[in-house]
């Protein structure tokens, strides 16, 4: 069952919202509301700032204090709010045309000053509101209303610009990869400092139809072809990669905090077994043995799951294997795995050889 309490953060009396059928901004609005609700942020401690454009309407549908700023000035207003009231959580909901082109200068300098604000950029690679002109992030060769023979300028590479300096947080995701999208939102909201989430979104009415897509889902499939997810925290992203870039500044206080966390982890590990992949294979539920699966380096005991009872497998998941990859293609999220007790840690092959 899905937790639907995020609806309290949306002004449902203004629904249905104003965007076109199949527009990705609705998905951005919904998932940001879910992310805020999961962290317990509410109207008491959160402010939304939005710029101009289709995505600028997002602040109006949030049940939070909101500022709708002049074109491109969302980041300056957000930084001012954060400076005057450091206890507030400030989030910016805007688009690539607002942040990248007319607000490009503010983006660079807000990034340089590193205030603790979170930016969600709805990157639909076009100027959607004004009718589908080529924008700063339009890929080279794309047909738009102002470039009927294909855009012949290079796009603005936000993944290169916003990872150039040392303390930085940049995440790129799409509205199609929902689990990854939710992880990025959560990580960005928790990050202390300027965090930027670049959400590749679809504009089906003014961009997708010209490119030959009939429905929004066909554009989603196109995103799936163009991009692939890279795991872990990286120090840069290539142009076809989705992932999280996080660079910490070298400060002594932060180094102390890190050792504390490591100490806690070691205590946790002491009570757990270390299993290699070979040993994990034995725990497949046959002859009354418990059923173990590996997930993200940990081993979970899923014997209590009704779907695995009596059989070796449930549809496509095989017991006694590392199922980290499977969760991306599964219709459910990773929260299903976390219901079950963690009984051990997986030994990586290189460690086992030592």
């Amino acid at each position, binding site marked *: *069952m899905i937790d639907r309490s995020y*609806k309290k953060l*949306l002004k449902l009396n203004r629904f*249905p919202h104003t965007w076109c*059928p199949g527009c990705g901004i609705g998905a951005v609005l919904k998932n940001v509301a879910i992310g805020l609700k999961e962290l317990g942020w509410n109207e008491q401690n959160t402010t939304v700032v939005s710029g101009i454009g289709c995505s600028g309407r997002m602040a109006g549908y949030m049940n939070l204090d909101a500022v709708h700023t002049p074109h491109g000035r969302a980041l300056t207003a957000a930084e001012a709010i954060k400076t005057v009231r450091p206890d507030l959580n400030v989030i910016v909901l805007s688009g690539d045309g607002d942040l990248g082109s007319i607000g490009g200068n503010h983006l660079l300098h807000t990034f340089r000053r590193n205030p603790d604000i979170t930016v969600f950029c709805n990157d639909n690679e076009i100027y959607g509101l004004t009718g589908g002109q080529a924008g700063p992030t339009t890929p080279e060769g794309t047909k738009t209303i102002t470039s009927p023979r294909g855009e012949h300028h290079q796009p603005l590479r936000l993944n290169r610009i916003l990872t150039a300096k040392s303390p930085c947080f940049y995440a790129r995701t799409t509205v199609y990869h*929902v689990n990854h999208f939710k992880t990025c939102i959560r990580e960005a909201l928790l990050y202390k400092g300027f965090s930027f989430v670049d959400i590749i979104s679809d504009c089906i009415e003014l961009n997708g139809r010209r490119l030959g897509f009939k429905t929004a*889902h066909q554009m989603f499939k196109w995103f799936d072809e163009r991009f692939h997810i890279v795991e872990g925290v990286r120090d840069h992203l290539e142009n076809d990669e989705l992932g999280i870039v996080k660079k910490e500044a070298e400060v002594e206080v932060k180094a102390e905090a890190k050792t504390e966390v490591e100490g806690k982890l070691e205590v946790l590990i002491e009570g757990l077994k270390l299993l290699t992949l070979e040993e994990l294979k034995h725990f497949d539920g046959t002859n009354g043995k418990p059923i173990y699966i590996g997930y993200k380096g940990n081993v979970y005991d899923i014997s209590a799951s009704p779907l695995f009872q009596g059989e070796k497998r449930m549809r496509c998941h095989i017991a006694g294997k590392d199922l980290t990859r499977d969760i991306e293609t599964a219709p459910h999220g990773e929260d299903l795995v976390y219901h079950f007790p963690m009984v051990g840690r997986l030994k990586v092959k290189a460690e086992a050889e030592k």
Partner: protein
Amino acid sequence: MYMKPRLNVIWNEIYCKRCIICVEVCPVQALAFERDEIVERPGCIRCYQCERYCPDIAIEVMDEEKR
């Protein structure tokens, strides 16, 4: 009367903009778009994909106890 219940899902007629993401994202083709309405055929596996992808909060999978 705009929250129309189906077998396993509730479809909100007013919020829905007929982008048919839910129909195309359904892994077992249990949803269909007929005569300007989303209809549900038997065979829903309750995977919640339609609800997770709907940008308009127009479709919800019913909770077990309400069925």
